[in-house]
């Protein structure tokens, strides 16, 4: 599915990366623990409630480009700036982690394992 479809499904707002919204994504990984994210071999979209500069740095190191923030977390200006440098898309929704994952799983995004 496309990121644009994800935005619609989650009733989310796009914080940065509008230009990439037609990108197709296949899989997702959900975690608030960045050490876990750093173990991934794949490059899924990241669903997380951890909303600070280390979320963006971790994505940079792990080559992840797309992030969905849950629980109404909004990225700061610093985060958005760093995300823009790395050509990332940041999406924010008000749903819980569980609801977000449920909706995206049901819509066909694959888990990594």
């Amino acid at each position, binding site marked *: 599915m496309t990121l644009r479809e994800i935005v619609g499904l989650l009733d989310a707002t796009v914080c940065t990366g509008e230009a990439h919204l037609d990108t197709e994504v296949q899989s997702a990984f959900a975690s*608030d*623990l*960045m*050490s*876990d*994210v*750093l*173990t991934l071999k794949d490059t899924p979209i990241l669903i997380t409630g*951890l909303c*600070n*500069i*280390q*979320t963006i*740095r*971790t994505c*940079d*190191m*792990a*080559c992840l480009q797309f992030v969905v923030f849950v629980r109404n977390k909004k990225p700061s200006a*610093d985060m958005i700036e760093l995300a823009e440098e790395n050509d990332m898309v940041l999406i924010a929704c008000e749903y819980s982690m569980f609801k977000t994952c449920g909706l995206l799983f049901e819509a066909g995004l694959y888990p990594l394992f």
Partner: protein
Amino acid sequence: MHQEYTVIEGDFVNAGAASSSVKKTLKQLNVNPQVVKRVVVALYEAEVNAIAHAYGGKVTVDIDAGKIRMVVADKGPGIPDIALAMQEGYSTARPEVRDMGFGAGMGLPNMQKNVDRLNVTSEVGVGTTVEMEVNF
């Protein structure tokens, strides 16, 4: 090629700045992206540790034909039992470290998994030095 970075105690905002810069350099050198990822994931975890568990330190990176060598040397409390610290799940991280998305005791194991050679030396009350090498 030789690079040096300073890591400042408690400066979580800049944790990863050295790794990020090394990533750019390796990309410019056309190093295989999978190797780049292994290097920067390991260096990032080491950088976070110098900030989270010690009082900052110095990162030195040397890139030669086919090899990158990284040394993260901190002034800090040191690690009393390195074998224990290497175990997955062992952590003495403060709550603010956990708030940054770390502190699950996976940093040193993550480094071990990503590099070809890891050597941790430490003296209690003096500091810790993490040396890592990746061949490419």
